[in-house]
């Protein structure tokens, strides 16, 4: 039996398309529909109620939530991109033995060796009022009273993000850099380019896809996170994802649905924007 190429392509996409439609699109449509309904005590009534949307789109709360998460995102991105770039540069161009390179790359994954909840709990003995950092600073005479902003603060949230997400930046950048032909660098050196010129003219442009992919990881991780921010801020910081979690815990589905749709649109828009800087297909092919 002969199948036309057209039919064959349809058959090939069918399994994934089925999963995507039934597990993603249909639930999304339901969530979108629910966001327009009235609700009370874990019930959703089939009556149109637009306040979930007017609140999501026009309240001071929404502005505060996105300003907070936007601040976390920018700080985290700047630091992880900076650290990730230079670590990758060091690993790819200065570490000669590939065994050592792999070992060092694996070492960057150490934060993931322990489960999330335990990792979060263990910040307290480190950063707490009577934690190691405060004790060390006090015994060195740097401070007289313990620093309280080390924990349950924006600082603590960003620190945890950097701790976890630097790897998400390091990986893709290392991958991009590793693909840069050595002959290109050598040619530049032969022409008398300084190391800094090589970095600026060759490595940064060619590492851009890695930076873009790393950025996608950071954007989705920070915007979607509610656990780290909850633990590290001591529940005292509210982000869009936390607001959704609070509403779900109160069984208030329509406002949670409106906020979720809104967050989804923003994340998708950011990712779409970032994808303009990188050809994912090309990255996967090479």
């Amino acid at each position: 039996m002969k199948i036309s190429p057209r039919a064959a392509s349809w058959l090939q996409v069918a399994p994934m398309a089925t999963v995507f439609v039934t597990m993603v699109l249909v639930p999304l449509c339901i969530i979108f529909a629910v966001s327009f309904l009235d609700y009370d005590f874990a019930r959703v009534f089939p009556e149109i109620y637009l306040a979930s949307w007017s609140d999501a789109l026009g309240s001071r709360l929404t502005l505060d939530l996105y300003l907070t998460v936007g601040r976390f995102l920018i700080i985290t991105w700047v630091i992880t991109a900076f650290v990730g770039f230079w670590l990758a540069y060091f690993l790819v161009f200065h570490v000669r033995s590939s065994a050592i390179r792999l070992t060092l790359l694996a070492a960057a994954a150490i934060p993931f060796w322990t489960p999330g909840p335990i990792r979060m709990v263990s910040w307290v003995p480190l950063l707490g009022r009577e934690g190691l950092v405060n004790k060390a600073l006090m015994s060195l005479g740097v401070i007289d009273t313990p620093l309280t902003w080390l924990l349950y603060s924006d600082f603590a949230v960003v620190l945890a993000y950097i701790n976890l997400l630097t790897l998400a930046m390091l990986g893709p950048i290392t991958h991009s850099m590793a693909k840069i032909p050595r002959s290109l660098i050598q040619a530049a050196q032969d022409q008398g380019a300084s190391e800094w010129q090589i970095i600026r003219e060759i490595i940064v442009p060619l590492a851009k896809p890695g930076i873009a992919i790393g950025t996608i990881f950071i954007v989705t991780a920070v915007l979607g996170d509610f656990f780290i921010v909850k633990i590290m801020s001591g529940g005292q910081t509210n982000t869009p994802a936390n607001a959704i979690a609070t509403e779900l815990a109160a069984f208030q589905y329509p406002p949670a649905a409106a906020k979720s749709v809104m967050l989804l649109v923003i994340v998708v828009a950011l990712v779409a924007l970032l994808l303009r800087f990188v050809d994912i297909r090309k990255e996967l092919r090479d």
Partner: protein
Amino acid sequence: MADHIKTAKPKAAASGALNRRSVLKSGAAAVAASAFPAPMLWAQNIKDIKIVHVGQSYSTIPNIAEKANEDLDFTVEMQTAPDLTSQINRLLTQPKSIDVTDVSNTSMKYFTNRGILMPLNVKDYKWWDKTVPLFTKGTYENGEPYSMQGFAPIKAQYYTDETASAYSLEPTEWLVGVPLYYNADTLGIRPDLIGRPIESWAELLNSEFSGKVALQDGVNVGVPDAAMALEAMGDMTYVDKGNMTRAEIDATIDKLIEYKRAGHFRSFWTNFDQSVQLMASGEVLLQSMWSPAVTEVRTRGVECTYNGMKEGYRGWYIMMMAVSHLEGLQRECAIEYMNWFNSGWAGAFISRQGFYNSVPENVKGEMTENEYGYWYEGKKSTSDILNPFGKVMEKAGVIRDGGGLWDRMGNIGIWNTLMDEDRYLVRRWQDFLAA
């Protein structure tokens, strides 16, 4: 509507239970549940019955499941929901996967008129006459009515009738559920770091402890606690701080935002472990806590007291109920299991964690005199007090903070709550968290 009708149980099943119950009673039934003589036919089928009890880690304890399976002729399978949200969601969306559950009475508004939970005829529950009057009559032991601020137990203890469509403040023959646990919560205190007595909820917002207090992260506990403090300070007056009006919610949240911006709160806690860690690590000197969490702090060698405040304790209550899809023998076994749960052994087990059981008389027989004296009667311990797993909780010569059952449960200032204006409160709580 179809759901609604389901709550009305076939009469045959109800009267069947009655007959068996009276047979059991005549069999001199004061012994353990396992000793009950059962009719032959019943005994043969019962082995195949499995009762699925879905609760949270504080109720679905493996030791209790083991003992239940030892005592009862049918199988009990306990399943632990990771948190209240998933438990309630499962009850609301897949009630048929559950036979028996236990939730706090403040969750009852999610189930009102949905036909999910089974009303229990008082005749099917053996221990109602011996149950403390907090639940049966809505009073303290001395007959005085208790505070109705918040979700007082009597507000969702009786249904007006078998249709389970409305709650009754007056006793009826239809119970919403079987009372399991209850307790009187108050502020946990680090006396070594504070150095003076703490006797009022107002201290929670005292600037002296700025940056060193924590609040429970939620509108059902954290808000009533904060309201107790605001009222005690004279900053707020409420008609019913357990069920605020929108204006009262606004005023309360606005005040709390001021405190939060001034850095008054060190952290908010959402679970047992966090509250223990905050207190034991010295991050926090003063916070609302659960009794077992205070004990846990103490077993780590850190001083922590838990005395009552002059405005009273914050009370709470968890009850057990069967799910309404149950029929015939399965239903009878579920009822049997609920009766077993309060027959003493399980009650004694949870009492050793610092909670109270609703039938103290049954618990008394399962505890040593020393244990019962310490946990329930406010007596000085005569030897080591062990937790259910054999760990030493207190040495000899210690009196429980706050005293005996009625010293603590007899002085409730507010109950955990789910306010009528929950939707508005959660929205304003978001503002507070974002501030």
